[in-house]
């Protein structure tokens, strides 16, 4: 059944054995995700050797993992948005509105002489936490829903649509707060307490979100359609995928993740932070791009995003420990980002693709 084409290539149906372990390994080792992952491991080894007993400790890693947890959550969400070939600049607005909505909801629950906002951490109950969660998620979801409708149905470029909701959402948050932050310990246990093996909840939550993201992107029909739309929205449309509706879902998911990030942030920092998240969008996009997700859509990896979240954090942490000016981290991350995207570019054009 093996036929030769005029150009001499073997044209038989590829037998199962053609998909060798070797070719699969080659694909893995040349993937941008693997390269940045190797870079991350290398940097970690270097820091461990150069700062023995300080960098490579459990305590340090627990601290790091807590510090990156919120960025992890929103970056997993935005990986889906970028997988469609879109972008979400409105993450800070989702986070801050998430915080503010939660605080507003708590402040409407009378407790003793005051409201639930005034609770101490040890007075808080699951009821207050669930109410705060619901309002945070609602705020983020609303921002995401608006993004999705504006991008998918009004056909405003994602960059501008989400720039609009970034400014608009932050404005609404500042109006609701009269520009000042409110401290609350009511949902403190969410982020700092531990339900499992003494691991802070924040870390467990980030791990769960990452796993859910990996499963959704790679194993679910939803993830497959997300990638298909990013690869060719026309091809997706022709096979009957409801492209607009799916885009709304994806942007809404991104907003949902931001709202959840706001909830976690309120728990972690015990205060709203209306001005404290302004670069979270750029950090998330950096993480996604570092990890090997294509900003053109169609190719995405949640695992890569996790790696991309850790690289800047590790560099900063390591530099501080070693007494290097931590501003070098910004320089290093910028260089690695450009390098990673450039390598991806080369790999793709050598593939004969786009």
């Amino acid at each position, binding site marked *: 059944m093996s*036929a*030769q*084409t*005029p*150009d001499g*290539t*073997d*044209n*038989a*149906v*590829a037998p*199962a054995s*053609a*998909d060798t372990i070797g*070719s*699969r390994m080659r*694909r893995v080792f040349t993937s941008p995700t693997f390269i940045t992952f190797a870079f991350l491991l290398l940097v970690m080894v270097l820091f461990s050797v150069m700062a023995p007993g300080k960098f490579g400790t459990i305590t340090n890693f627990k601290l790091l993992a807590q510090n990156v947890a919120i960025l992890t959550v929103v970056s997993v969400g935005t990986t889906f948005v970028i997988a469609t070939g879109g972008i979400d600049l409105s993450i800070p607005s989702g986070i801050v509105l998430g915080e503010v909505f939660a605080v507003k909801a708590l402040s409407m629950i009378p407790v003793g002489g005051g409201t639930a906002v005034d609770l101490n951490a040890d007075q808080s109950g699951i009821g207050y936490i669930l109410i705060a969660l619901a309002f945070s998620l609602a705020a983020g979801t609303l921002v995401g829903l608006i993004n999705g409708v504006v991008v998918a149905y009004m056909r405003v470029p994602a960059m501008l649509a989400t720039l609009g909701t970034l400014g608009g959402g932050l404005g609404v948050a500042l109006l609701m707060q009269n520009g000042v932050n409110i401290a609350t310990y009511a949902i403190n246990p969410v982020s700092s307490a531990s339900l499992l093996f003494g691991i802070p909840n924040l870390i467990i939550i980030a791990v769960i979100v990452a796993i859910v993201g990996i499963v959704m992107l790679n*194993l*679910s*029909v*939803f993830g*497959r*359609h997300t*990638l*298909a739309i*990013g*690869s*060719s929205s*026309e*091809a*997706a*449309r*022709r*096979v*009957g*995928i409801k492209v607009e509706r799916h885009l709304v879902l994806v942007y809404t998911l991104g907003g949902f993740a931001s709202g959840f990030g706001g909830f976690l942030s309120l728990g972690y920092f015990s205060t709203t932070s209306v001005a404290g998240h302004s670069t979270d969008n750029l950090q998330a996009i950096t993480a996604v791009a570092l990890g090997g997700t*294509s900003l053109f859509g*169609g*190719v995405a990896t949640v695992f890569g995003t996790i790696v991309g979240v850790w690289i800047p954090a590790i560099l900063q942490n390591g530099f501080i420990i070693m007494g290097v000016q931590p501003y070098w981290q910004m320089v290093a991350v910028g260089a690695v980002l450009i390098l990673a995207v450039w390598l991806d570019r080369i790999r793709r054009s050598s*593939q*004969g*693709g*786009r």
Partner: protein
Amino acid sequence: MTARVDGTIAPAIAAESIIKNFNHVHALRGASFEAFPGEVTALVGDNGAGKSTLVKILAGTLQPDGGTIRIDGREVTFADPVAATALGIETVYQDLALAPDLDAAANVFLGREIRRMHFFHDQAEMRRRTAKSFADLGVGLVQDLRVPVASFSGGQRQSVAIARAAMWARHVIMLDEPTAALGVIQTAKVLDLIRSIRDRGLAVVFISHNLPQVLEVADRIEVLRLGSRVARFRGGEVNVDQLIAAISGAFSNEVAA
């Protein structure tokens, strides 16, 4: 196939006086077309004659501005491509319409994934079925089934699109220049595939600029010119010169619409 009261067979798919405008471009001006079950109907015409536009309307990808579509004689409207595929109508588009970053199996099953627990796709099973149907159809692929189709050659991509359509077609298959990027061997395979699909009783619509190829495989030939049908022939009753005359407007056997 459905026999009419008068004993003739209704076209498996038919277009009647279809009108389609893109702003100021009148792509279709009352175009009609018929394809019958168990026959290969070739649709020929010059560049820009409206062949691809007509196929997209019959596939539900474009909505006509006027006219009627009939399936087995019954009037239908296709709100979207799913409405057409639900009736067993499959299309290989001129631009292929594959998702380049997905692998062959993902493309073949895109939009109709085999699911597990509703939420998940069953990638292993989809790969297995794709490999089997590629083998059955004689579609050759050098690369394995795990790499994105972006890394395939143009001809291999075309094979994936054809195999996808052939796999799902139950009633009508429309192929818009399916051999344009293929070498000699692959072209022969596609023509064989077209015949075997016809022999399964499906209506095959075949668009090509290669007139000898059209004459080789077509049972009927319809000619489109400037957005409307100008001639119809039976396969054996026409030669290349007559087809060229019809395509260029020097000949018509159609009453003006």
